[in-house]
């Protein structure tokens, strides 16, 4: 290759072709899912591999999906649960991260050590005792049970602490001289300056909890409380795989929100993951 020159389209083709093949394999289930949701059942498994639907069955499929199970309710639950979780996570994590990053006090290292310990423990570990606890209080099958266990996000504390540490101390000294209390410093000075970290964490948290199956599977018993992930399982139970078109329509509707969110906030999301990765 000549020094410093950009490869021509022709030279770039092998690379693009390889990536294209991989991309197709990755997209295959999405394409199939989308197309199946637009076809009537008779077309989906026909012998010939036709891609585009002959009969546009979208309305029937999506209509059925919405009618069979309270799909909109699932989506609403998902949104509410994710929003509540994010709200509490930031509410708890930001002040703690600030104290760990910028204040000096005895016990700081101890608490940070415990936070790091918490990072090691996957949330499946406390699941059992938490379940028993919620059962005892009679709070199973409720928003409380879905939200409370996740209100502590050690990853959030870790991420915010890193972001806060990189802020100049002078900012905080100036705020103190203006008479601000530590709590208002957190919300009025520090958080606004750590906006990229906050949005990265937000996308991370929302996607993780929208897609979570394990915990809702454990605590939710009624359809009314189901989250999107559970909703898919319920739908399958209803249909027992008979109406694939409607099932795929339901699958599209629960998967689409996060994909759209990701596509809109790509950079933030990837930033969040990469930051956690590179600073390790």
């Amino acid at each position, binding site marked *: *290759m*000549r*020094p*410093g*020159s950009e490869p021509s389209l022709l030279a770039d083709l092998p690379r693009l072709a390889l990536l294209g093949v991989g991309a197709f394999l990755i997209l295959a289930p999405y394409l199939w899912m989308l197309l199946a949701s637009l076809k009537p059942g008779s077309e989906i498994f026909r012998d010939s591999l036709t891609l585009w639907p002959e009969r546009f069955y979208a309305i029937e499929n999506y209509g059925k999906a919405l009618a069979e199970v309270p799909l909109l309710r699932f989506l609403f639950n998902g949104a509410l649960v994710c929003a509540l979780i994010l709200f509490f996570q930031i509410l708890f994590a930001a002040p703690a991260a600030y104290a760990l990053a910028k204040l000096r006090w005895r016990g700081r290292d101890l608490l940070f050590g415990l936070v790091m310990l918490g990072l090691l423990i996957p949330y499946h570990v406390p699941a059992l005792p938490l379940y028993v606890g919620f059962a005892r209080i009679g709070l199973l099958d409720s928003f409380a049970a879905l939200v409370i266990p996740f209100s502590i996000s050690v990853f959030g504390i870790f991420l915010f602490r890193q972001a806060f540490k990189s802020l100049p101390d002078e900012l905080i000294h100036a705020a103190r001289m203006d008479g601000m209390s530590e709590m208002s410093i957190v919300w009025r000075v520090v958080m606004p300056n750590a906006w990229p970290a906050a949005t990265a964490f937000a996308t991370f948290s929302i996607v993780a909890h929208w897609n979570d199956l394990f915990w809702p599977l454990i605590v939710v018993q009624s359809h009314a409380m189901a989250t999107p992930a559970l909703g898919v399982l319920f739908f399958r139970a209803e249909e027992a795989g008979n109406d694939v078109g409607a099932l795929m329509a339901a699958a599209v509707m629960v998967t689409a929100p996060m994909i759209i969110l990701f596509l809109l906030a790509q950079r933030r999301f990837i930033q969040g993951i990469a930051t956690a990765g590179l600073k390790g």
Partner: protein
Amino acid sequence: MPRDTGRAILIEGVEKSFGKTSVLKDVSLALREGEFLSLVGPSGCGKTTLLRIIAGLESADAGRVRIGGIDVTGLRAADRDIAMVFQNYALYPHLTVSQNLAVPLVMRRLSALERVPLLRHLIPGHKGRCAAIDAEVRGAAEMLRLGHLLARRPAELSGGQRQRVALGRALVRHPSAFLMDEPLSNLDAELRAGTRREIVELHRRAGVTTIYVTHDQVEAMTMSDRVAVIMEGELLQLGTPREVYENPVDLRVAGFLGSPRINILPAVATPEGIRLGGSLLPMRAPLPAGARLSVGLRPEALHLARDGLAAVVEHQEFLGAEVLIHARLDAVEARVTAKLGIAAAEPLRLGDAIHLRADWRDVLLFGEHGQRILAIPAETSLDA
């Protein structure tokens, strides 16, 4: 100095644009073998781009580069027999100093198969080649006083030591030319002065043609055999440090070299002489009457006198061996800086009215577009 094009560098008509921005405009220069040439200019003037084109890391849109008589324009960097020292040293962080120094030799002398970890011992002659490489690495390390650091990694070295490892990595190959991209800019002031001397000494001993890029005109002036002043993508002047300082061909060159900055004052050409505000300078320029020009006066050329340019002292800066007097001229809206000796400046106070003169030979004249105009003393007739 006899011109031996054996290993000299020739740059002809190099042009480069990034998108719509033209970064280098028809630059040509010829280096003599063994010469130390600085490419100097303000940030963004294109000097680093030119260096990278010579190295082969960028390709020019037009023009040719010849090294040692061979047209290397189409060759990749690895094939050009040059070595480069980078601003941030670019040392391999996972290798020790001795391994870093050995890389250029390992990559070139050991075949691809030999470099595979286990296979290497099966290839005949391998041990001999490795021993030879070791010897050269140690030689380079000795020359740069790195002998005791060979087992360390770059992270464990100071800035100056990393610098020397970068130099050593370039030296160890005995290339046709060295290219240096602002190697001193990451060092603190004291270290910079010492390393400057080391680089010059190294050059003297090794005798390799060196192109040195810097934005610091002091570095360029003190280290080079010749200086190439580049501004806005154009090669403005090429000459010895003394030539470019005393005889700048362009206003921009005069303004860039010299500290403190040269004084530039607006003037008008008249049949009687150059009119500078209220004063008449005793010289003529081959220009039509009424033509506008700029007069350049270096601070050290100005001295106190009983008559001359009238000015009022605004500010004094004590430099230790000299004093800088900043004054506002009466005749034109301009400030001048004069460098005076302690004794001369002693009686001056803020607000004093003074007169400044300069020897006519020290006056530099520049035309409307910045080009240098040679002045003639007023006594001589213009058509003599």
